[in-house]
């Protein structure tokens, strides 16, 4: 079978969640995420594992133009039961690729000051991570750490710096790159390398 989900859902999801949680707790630190599942192209297996671990009928999904293939939509609908939505503001999770133009982050649900948890989580898949694009600091980071994602533009990182400026509301991002994931929650201060 070419498009397989979790074989042992409870245990595989538990391991995947621990990796996602460690990544979210330590922004900018890539964490290995070993997955046995097989996802349809162009969905990265690590992105697929995030979807199967966190998404279900309660979490509307939005797929970027590159990710919105018939095979990916079918796979996510079948394995998570999550509704796919056209409008970004209604999505709890969004799946994107670093190799396409990132849409304006402010179009995704930001949460409210009373309920900052009601905001979208973006899952962006990329080829590799580096340590050169931005310098991160804040909760979860001892001092500062260098971070970067292949393919993401300076405009994206400026938008993430802007996203932090609105704390406590804002979106959170999980990056997936071939067996590794990293995260950038809204609590992290982002400084572009050129302006350090």
């Amino acid at each position, binding site marked *: 079978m070419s498009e397989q989900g979790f074989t042992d*859902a409870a245990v595989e999801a538990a391991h995947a969640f621990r990796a996602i*949680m460690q990544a*979210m707790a330590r922004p900018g630190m890539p964490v290995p995420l070993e997955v046995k599942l097989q996802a349809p192209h162009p969905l990265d297996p690590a992105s697929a594992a995030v979807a199967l671990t966190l*998404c279900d009928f309660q979490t509307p999904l939005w797929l970027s133009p590159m990710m919105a293939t018939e095979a990916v939509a079918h796979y996510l609908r079948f394995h998570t039961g999550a509704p796919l939505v056209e409008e970004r503001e209604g999505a709890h999770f969004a799946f994107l690729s670093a190799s396409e133009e990132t849409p304006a982050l402010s179009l995704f649900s930001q949460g*409210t000051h*009373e309920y900052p948890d009601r905001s979208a989580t973006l899952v962006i898949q990329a080829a590799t991570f580096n340590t050169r694009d931005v310098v991160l600091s804040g*909760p979860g980071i001892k001092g500062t750490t260098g971070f970067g994602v292949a393919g993401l533009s300076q405009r994206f990182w400026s938008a993430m710096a802007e996203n932090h400026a609105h704390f406590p509301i804002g979106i959170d991002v999980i990056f997936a790159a071939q067996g590794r994931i990293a995260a950038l929650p809204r609590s992290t201060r982002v400084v572009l390398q050129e302006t350090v």
Partner: protein
Amino acid sequence: MNAPAYNFAYLNEQTKRMIRRAILKAIAVPGYQVPFASREMPMPYGWGTGGVQVTASVLTPDDRLKVIDQGADDTTNAVSIRKFFVKTAGVATTERTEEATIIQTRHRIPETPLTADQILVFQVPIPEPLRFLEPRETETRKMHALEEYGVMHVKLYEDIAQFGEIATTYAYPAKVADRYVFDPSPIPKFDNPKLDDCPALQLFGAGREKRIYAIPPHTKVKSLDFEDHPFEVQRWNEPCALCGSRTSFLDEIVIDDKGARMFVCSDTDFCAKQRDGR
């Protein structure tokens, strides 16, 4: 061994997904209380149902679990919860702090410093630090949104006016990452300094009140105080009667009916380690 009638770690997968999403948002907004759809657990409220649901959602079969109640591994609450996870998740357990990967705790932080490989899960009775000052949830929610914490400082000031010092000794309010005032659960204020810049991830679960919150590793946690009345922790005049430690939190134990008492470490693992010279 897993009892076959249970899903791994008792909760069903949809419940775990819901709790896991809440945990991630809690980490992304440190100190903010995320509402979650707390489930009925096979133990009464007040016995750690929030902590148990958080532990069940982060647990993997490779973990080694430690459970403490007021620092002790061998009290009813700790033993029951440890047995619960042995039965429903088949995980290994330990009483040694340094061997544990997940530590669920009721009202203490272990004396042994935690590491980056560990996760501390707190059982929380009342997650809202402002609740005794403002009973309406709609109001406290607005106060957090506006970062309006003046009433908490008034409460601490009234302590000073009445008693000459801040009389709050447990569940001492602190500010997380310069934003949210939070309730660290009823740990003694002696443990508050351990919350600050801790290398381990700290998760808080309140089952009855249906809230989850978190402190990521290396996050600034500042106990509220005044310039002329700085935050201070409890001190004892004598060392632990069993291990002689002068640095740990001591429990006062009445040992006869004539009023004699002794002071011993509340952290049983730490005390045993000191005595064994481990």
